[in-house]
């Protein structure tokens, strides 16, 4: 299979998953107990008002027509209106999406170098006290729920010593430094969540690599340790490491939802959770599609980069 075919296959599954989600939601609205127009207007609404709203929302037309129309509009960036407060969804989402991206990027900037450094160090000093300690600590962090990490940080740095705010209220007109300061704790929490996974995967990748025959061969030939790492290990380590980074960035997309709720951060995850609670389906749908598309895109990038970095993957079996 060529590179293009592999990528196309992955992209196909991703798009199919997104498509299934949208169909699921459309069908869900259909089988929802009670009529959509009725639930917007409330039980006491006059029947002809409900009928008028049904026409306005287009509910009197068949499902596949409405679905086609929705898809057409969505692809052009028109995501419809929220059921809860009648606002344009694109308007609701805009600033929040930027806030979430800001949080995720800041966490990635801290987490990636830290995790790689720790992972490589642990792998090179395998089975030493350093390696074992770090392995235990990260195993602990993986087992912790994200919100515990968040609240421990709050208890320590916002309550015990009042260094950072417990609630990250950031607004677009705040200067960048102030925004960074306000989001210190969520960024730190997210970093802890991701570093543990990323570090362990990096370590496993490097350990695996250092055990391969060509490294042993180099060692037996008497090549200097530094030269082995730079000339033999590094070129081969590149592809698994890139893979680890991108996979964990995808993981970060999910972790961000819980962390945003902990710190009452005005991001997309918070909006999504609130919308699920009031069952505001169009907003949930838009949020899930944005998160989902990001996730799928990141996974796809990981695939492409690892195939480019490792030609062997282009010829499975």
């Amino acid at each position: 299979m060529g590179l293009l075919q592999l990528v196309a296959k992955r992209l196909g599954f991703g798009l199919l998953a997104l498509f299934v989600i949208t169909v699921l939601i459309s069908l869900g609205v259909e089988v929802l107990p009670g009529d959509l127009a009725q639930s917007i207007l409330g039980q006491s609404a006059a029947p002809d008002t409900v009928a008028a709203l049904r026409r306005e929302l287009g509910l009197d037309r068949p499902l596949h027509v409405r679905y086609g129309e929705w898809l057409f509009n969505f692809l052009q960036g028109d995501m419809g209106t929220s059921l809860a407060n009648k606002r344009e969804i694109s308007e609701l989402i805009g600033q929040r999406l930027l806030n979430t991206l800001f949080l995720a990027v800041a966490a990635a900037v801290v987490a990636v170098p830290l995790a790689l450094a720790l992972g490589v160090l642990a792998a090179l000093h395998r089975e030493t006290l350093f390696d074992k300690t770090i392995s235990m600590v990260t195993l602990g962090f993986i087992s912790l729920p994200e919100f515990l990490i968040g609240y421990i940080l709050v208890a320590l740095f916002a309550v015990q010593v009042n260094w950072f705010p417990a609630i990250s209220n950031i607004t677009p007109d705040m200067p960048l430094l102030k925004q960074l300061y306000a989001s210190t704790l969520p960024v730190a929490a997210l970093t802890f969540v991701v570093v543990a996974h990323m570090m362990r995967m990096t370590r496993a990748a490097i350990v695996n690599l250092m055990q391969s025959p060509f490294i042993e061969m180099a060692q037996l030939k008497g090549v200097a340790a530094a030269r082995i790492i730079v000339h033999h290990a590094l070129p081969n380590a590149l592809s698994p490491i890139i893979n680890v980074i991108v996979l964990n960035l995808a993981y970060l997309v999910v972790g961000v939802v819980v962390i945003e709720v902990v710190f009452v951060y005005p991001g997309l995850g918070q909006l999504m959770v609130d919308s699920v609670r009031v069952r505001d389906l169009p907003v949930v749908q838009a949020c899930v599609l944005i998160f989902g598309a990001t996730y799928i895109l990141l996974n796809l990038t990981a695939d492409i980069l690892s195939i480019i970095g490792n030609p062997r993957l282009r010829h499975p079996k």
Partner: protein
Amino acid sequence: MLFLKEFAKAGWPAKAGMAVILVYLFCAVFAPLIAPYAETEVIITAPWASAEESGTLLGLDQLGRDLWTRVLYGARNTITIAIVITLLAFFIGMAAGFFAAVVGGVTDQLLSRIVDIIMAFPTLFFALIVLSILGTSVPVLIVVIAILDSTRVFRISRALAMDISVMDYVEVAKLRGEGLWWIMRREVLPNALTPLIAEFGLRFCFVFLFISALSFLGLGIQPPAADWGSMVRENAAAITYGIMTPLVPALAIAILTIAVNLVVDWFLRKTSGLRDEV
């Protein structure tokens, strides 16, 4: 018996983990007997009264209920639901996985592609969609999470059964005229059991953390039932006053998942030689 003998030789982390698990199970089973108060009983309407003020072990929660009682009942509710979900996920995943591997052909292709689609998307988002359509209730939670989680069980059981179903003894059973269900249960299952047991522990942790996260987001087990994730959420405001109440249920979650991980770690090393972790 053999298990006990082998376990006696395990290192201290695995033994400590097992001890913690047993304590949790004991609390879950006997919560009504150990707990000093009823699950939703309000003692005094003093939110977050400390242990000394209220004369209780851990103080009171946001409505003035005994925190220790709530934690005990939380063990009962949360662990039970997590176990039920994991069992259901394994039943669905293993049945579908073995079936796909033994039958093969179009059935296998179809099931595998469905699983590919579900796994191309984070579990949390799938769950949020379904919950916003159907609303949050315990039966919905159980079925939705079990189905989403069964995809991973499917992958593993299918891969295991693929190797087993080409064995001579399966061929013999087929020639003998045994039915599909009999082959899956009597020939494939016993040979795939060891890796699946280890996976059960890991899946339980995942489900347990997932349901706690959902409850924390207000989308899981609903109040007034005591549940650790919801308890963190309900008491979260206390932390800004320097009261550590929300950390208690959160720690209860963390300690159990770490304990299960320690035991699974031992089991994996024991059964598959030295396996480097990912």
